[in-house]
């Protein structure tokens, strides 16, 4: 399984902070992103991390990974 986390605004819009999905061969971040954020309501850029490191959409994911989606950061 892959743990998918949603942070900040995305957590509110999805309605939960995490869920698990089944891993598939050849799966990438983009595949997961499409599954959750194809709706037009998600207009802001969405960033992602794999196992707590920033990554891009082409990054491959596999069983046991933790993927997080979040808006552009606004700390500081």
């Amino acid at each position, binding site marked *: 399984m892959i743990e998918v*986390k949603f*942070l*900040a*605004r995305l957590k509110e819009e999805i309605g939960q902070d995490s869920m698990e999905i089944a891993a598939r061969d050849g799966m990438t971040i983009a595949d997961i992103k499409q599954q959750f954020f194809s709706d037009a309501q998600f207009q*802001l850029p969405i960033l992602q*991390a794999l196992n*707590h*490191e*920033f990554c891009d959409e082409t990054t491959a994911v596999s069983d046991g990974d*933790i993927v*997080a989606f*979040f*808006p*552009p*950061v*606004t*700390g*500081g």
Partner: protein
Amino acid sequence: MVIVSDAAIDPYQLLANYEAQLSARGSVGAAAHFIGLMREFNEGDDVVGMTLEQYPEMTRRALDKLRLSLIDDFELNDALIVHRVGALQITDPIVVVGCWSAHRKAAFEACRAAMERLKSDVPLWKKETLADGSTRWVEQNTPGY
């Protein structure tokens, strides 16, 4: 050192305490400090409160990475980064950066770089409470450079 605090912080105490325990203090010729404070306005609206959300498993790691990049890139003696999370009030310190180096140029530039990198490389998100009681996520950092 990196500190992520969900309680109020005293920047001057933190900086003084950290500086006092620096190793090889005699080789430090410059200290540059930055303190970010919560202001009462943003994007033309009155702001009365703010919550800073983090991604706990990643935020601390990203701050550690940022600190080490500053020490390497600017040849610092040491660096301190402290960031608040949780509920903040107007005038509360949000972030504290301390950079110590042999000469002033490195300390100044590292301090500036710390804030610019922090605003793009560290998973933290601000949610403001406005004067009318409504809340909104801050969607982008103000230029402010």
